[in-house]
C-alpha cells in the first residue's frame, strides 16, 4: 500500500547506513529544507489557480482558460513574469527593513510548517507543545506586515499595516480559545496525540455542538488572521490601493503573495488536524468493517482532502461576503466572538470533565 512514512523510513535507513550520524543528520535537514521549499512553490501555484477558478465559478465566469489546458499554467506564467520584473525600492524608504519584511513573512510561514503532520508518521518536528508553538509563531507574521508598512514610507502602507496589527491582536484571542477547546478535550498539546485521540471519530462529530461552534469560530478567526476577505482590511484595494504591499513589486511582492497562500494552507491544515482528525481516516467507533475499508485510502490523501475542503470553504467566504469596516471588525471580535468562545470553552470543559463526549 502507498505510504509516505514507508518512503521516509527507507531514506532515513539508507542515509544512516551509508554515512556517519552527524553527516546523515545534516543531509536529512537539507532534504527537509528542499522538500519544504518545493511544497511552498507547488502550493503557491496550485492555490492561486484554485482561488481564481473558484472565484470565477462563484461569479458565473470561466476564469483563466488560455494558458495550457483549461488555464492550468496561468500561475506558472504569472510567476515567470514576476521573477523578470524589476523590484523597485522607494526613494525615502527604510531600505533594510523594506527588503527584510517579505523574507520575515516567508520565514514565519516556513516555521509553521514544522509541526504539521502531513500523513501517518510524516511530520518534520513532533514537538510536545505543538499547538502552543503554532499559536505563538503564527502571530509573528504581523511583525513582517508592520515592518513592510512602516518601511515603505507610504501612508496607505502604514494604515494597512496598523489595521492588520489591530486585527491580528484581536482575532488571536478567539482563535486561541477555539484551539483550547480541543486541547481541553484531548488533554495534550502534542499534535500527534490530538490526531491519535480522534481514532474512533473526529472531534467535530464526537464533541457535540460546542465543538461545532468552536470550529466555526476557528474558521472565522483563521480567515481574519490570514488577512483575507471579508477581513482584508490590511489590503482593502478600494480604500488603500494595496495596503502594506503597495510599494512592493516583482519578486518581493510575489513573496508576500506566496506567504498569504501558504498561511491559508497552514491554518486550514491546523483546522483539519484539530477538528477533522488530520490524516486520520473517517472512523466510526464500533464499526470495524467500515473502519478497515476507510484505512485503505492513504492517510496523505485524507489530510490533503480535508485541508483543501477547508481552503475551499475560506475561498467561498471570500467571494461571497463584503468587506467589514474597521469598527464592525472590532465589534465582531470583542462583542460576539470572544464572549461566545469564552462560554463555549466553559461548556466544553464541563463536557470533558463529565466525560459526555464519545
Amino acid at each position: 500500500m502507498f505510504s509516505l512514512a514507508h518512503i521516509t523510513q527507507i531514506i532515513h535507513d539508507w542515509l544512516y547506513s551509508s554515512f556517519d550520524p552527524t553527516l546523515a543528520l545534516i543531509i536529512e535537514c537539507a532534504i527537509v529544507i528542499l522538500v519544504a521549499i518545493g511544497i511552498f512553490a507547488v502550493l503557491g501555484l496550485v492555490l492561486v489557480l484554485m482561488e481564481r477558478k473558484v472565484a470565477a465559478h462563484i461569479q458565473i465566469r470561466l476564469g483563466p482558460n488560455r494558458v495550457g489546458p483549461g488555464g492550468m499554467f496561468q500561475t506558472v506564467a504569472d510567476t515567470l513574469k514576476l521573477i523578470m520584473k524589476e523590484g523597485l525600492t522607494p526613494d525615502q524608504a527604510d531600505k533594510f527593513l523594506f527588503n527584510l519584511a517579505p523574507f520575515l513573512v516567508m520565514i514565519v510561514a516556513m516555521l509553521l510548517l514544522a509541526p504539521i503532520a502531513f500523513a501517518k508518521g510524516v511530520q518534520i518536528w513532533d514537538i510536545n507543545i505543538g499547538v502552543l508553538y503554532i499559536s505563538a509563531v503564527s502571530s509573528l507574521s504581523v511583525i513582517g506586515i508592520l515592518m513592510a508598512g512602516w518601511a515603505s514610507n507610504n501612508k496607505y502602507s502604514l494604515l494597512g499595516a496598523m489595521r492588520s496589527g489591530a486585527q491580528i491582536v484581536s482575532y488571536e484571542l478567539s482563535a486561541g480559545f477555539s484551539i483550547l477547546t480541543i486541547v481541553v478535550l484531548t488533554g495534550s498539546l502534542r499534535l500527534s496525540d490530538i490526531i491519535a485521540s480522534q481514532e474512533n471519530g473526529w472531534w467535530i462529530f464526537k464533541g457535540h455542538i460546542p465543538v461545532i461552534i468552536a470550529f466555526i469560530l476557528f474558521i472565522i478567526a483563521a480567515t481574519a488572521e490570514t488577512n483575507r476577505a471579508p477581513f482584508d482590511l490590511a489590503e482593502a484595494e478600494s480604500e488603500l490601493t494595496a495596503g502594506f504591499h503597495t510599494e512592493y513589486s516583482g519578486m518581493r511582492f510575489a513573496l508576500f503573495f506566496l506567504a498569504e497562500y501558504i498561511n491559508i494552507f497552514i491554518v486550514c491544515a491546523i483546522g483539519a488536524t484539530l477538528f477533522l482528525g488530520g490524516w486520520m481516516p473517517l472512523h466510526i467507533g464500533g464499526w470495524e468493517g467500515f473502519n478497515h475499508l476507510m484505512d485503505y485510502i492513504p492517510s496523505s490523501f485524507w489530510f490533503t482532502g480535508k485541508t483543501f475542503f477547508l481552503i475551499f470553504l475560506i475561498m467561498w467566504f471570500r467571494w461571497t461576503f463584503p468587506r467589514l469596516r474597521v469598527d464592525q471588525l472590532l465589534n465582531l471580535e470583542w462583542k460576539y466572538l470572544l464572549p461566545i468562545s469564552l462560554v463555549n470553552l466553559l461548556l466544553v470543559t464541563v463536557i470533558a470533565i463529565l466525560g459526555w463526549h464519545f
Partner: protein
Amino acid sequence: MFLKEYISDVYKGVKSLLTGMKKTGYYFVHPSEIITQQYPENRHDLNLPERFRGEVVMSHDENNEHACTGCTACELACPNGTIKIITKFDITPEGKKKKAIDTFIYHLELCTMCNLCVQACPTDAIKMSQKFEHSVYDRSRLTKKLNQPGSKIREGVE
C-alpha cells in the same frame, strides 16, 4: 431582554450569511449558469444580451424607405455631438415644400452608446444594433452615413 436581543442578532447575522453562501454555492456547482462568452472562438454564434448596444443604425424596409422625418430631436438629445443631420426640402405631389433628411451623419468615434437618441426619436427611425466589431485602420471610416443612398421617407410617417 438584552440576552434575547444578542442571541437574535447572532441568529440573524448567521442566517443572512448562509443565504449568501447558498446563492454562490449554487452558482459554483452549476457551470451551466456561466455567462462568459469565449469571443473569438464563438464569433458566429455569439449569445449577446438583448440590451447590448453596439452602434446606432437606421432601419430601412424592403422598398428602401425609412421613418426619419429630419426633426433633429436625436441631434439635440445627443450629449456629445455624435449626430449631425443635414436637411433638404422635397416637393410633394401637391406642389408643397416638405422638410426631409438629406444626410444623417453619425460619428461612431464620439458615440458612448447612451441610447438617448433612440429614446428621443418620435418615429422610431433609429435603433441600436448589436454589431460591435468596429475597428478600422482609418479614423475617418468611423464617420458613417446612416440613410441609404436613394432612400426616402415612408408614406404616412409625419
